[in-house]
């Protein structure tokens, strides 16, 4: 039974064109330097002679006119409507739109960011991954914890704003974070909400600018409402949207 290279040699190309299959090239090179070189040479000469005869096949004059007419097979020009309807083009367009929308959203988010927004987002991830067992149990009003933070931990102005002062606490802890530094974390009963108090971020000039309004940050389904007073940021965080937090802020205003 002939091996693969012998089979390939049986249909070896009459003229070797560029882009020839590697296996075929190897088989031809091998046979040309082997014992069967003469037999293969006869085969090549045989094939070349027939191919020459084929090239000499006369073409009818009437038909030859067809070959001259370049417009016989018109080249189809694709209209823009056809291009737009192409599923590949549609898919690319949708992908580009999504990328543009995400980029615009990210840029817009960064433009509206306040100093300390990155710290706030980091604490949202802390809040999302924490369990209540990590905190020291303490049931009191949130407002009462300011004194505890000052007396026990020497944390000045770590005050819970009036909007959340009446909330009943479940536990609290103070910890050091590599980026945010001294953080006070409070768990409250209301909707498993968490409060974070942490040092404010100075701006590029090194100045700390307080803001009394509420600014929002979001991360993976968690939302935080942040305000900054006396160089300390307060963030109320919960699993939900900005709308859920606004309800508490507006209630207090009324």
């Amino acid at each position, binding site marked *: 039974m002939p091996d693969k290279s012998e089979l390939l040699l049986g249909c070896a190309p009459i003229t070797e064109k560029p882009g020839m299959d590697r296996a075929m090239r190897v088989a031809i090179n091998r046979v040309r330097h082997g014992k069967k070189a003469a037999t293969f040479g006869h085969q090549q000469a045989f094939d070349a002679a027939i191919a020459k005869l084929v090239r000499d096949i006369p073409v009818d004059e009437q038909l030859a006119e067809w070959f001259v007419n370049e417009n*016989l097979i018109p080249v189809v020009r694709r209209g823009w409507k056809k291009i737009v309807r192409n599923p590949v083009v549609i898919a690319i367009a949708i992908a580009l739109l999504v990328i543009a929308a995400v980029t615009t959203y990210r840029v817009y988010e960064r433009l509206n960011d306040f100093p300390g927004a990155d710290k706030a987002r980091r604490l949202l991830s802390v809040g999302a991954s924490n369990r209540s067992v990590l905190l020291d149990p303490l049931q009191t009003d949130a407002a009462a914890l300011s004194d505890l933070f000052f007396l026990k931990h020497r944390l000045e102005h770590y005050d819970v704003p009036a909007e959340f002062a009446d909330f009943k606490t479940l536990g609290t802890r103070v910890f050091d974070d590599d980026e945010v530094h001294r953080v006070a974390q409070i768990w409250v009963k209301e909707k498993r909400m968490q409060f974070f108090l942490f040092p404010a971020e100075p701006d590029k000039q090194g100045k700390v600018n307080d803001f009394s309004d509420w600014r929002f940050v979001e991360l993976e389904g968690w939302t935080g409402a942040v305000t900054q007073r006396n160089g300390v940021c307060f963030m109320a965080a919960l699993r939900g949207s900005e709308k859920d937090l606004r309800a508490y802020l507006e209630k207090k205003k009324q």
Partner: protein
Amino acid sequence: MAVTTKNLPQLYRFCFLMTGDAAKAQAAFQDTVREATTKTDAEEPPPDRLWFFRDARWRCIALGEQGIQAEPGMLEEVEIAPSAPAQIAQLTPEQLALWISAAPEPQRSALALFYLDEFTLVELLSLLEMKAGELSELICSGRRQFQAWLDSTIAYYGEEAHDAGQI
């Protein structure tokens, strides 16, 4: 690869080898080109080079089934002789086309496409819908049969060829 009218002479030669008859080859060729033009007008995907040969192949097979058929039978096979090129040089294209067109399918298509010296092995296998081993076998046995026919038709004496008979 796009098809231009520059590729068409090879298409005609293919039809001629397949049918062995200029009138039939012309009919198959014209029908194929017309079909391609219709497709293009109907804004279907433009036919590629292989499409032309595939379409023409089936038209030629259909045309070959009309009229006188070659009798099926075992042909004698001999090894290729060193003198074969000189013997082939004595032939006319019409004689070659008659011999190829009388071969059974798919050997006829394989020989016609192979000797056009137009396609790569991959293209040949795609056109003929067969494996390399099958194609090789068809071509090799075709060569040996053709040599046997050459020996019986055109005798070769040294440098001189002697036409020993007619087809």
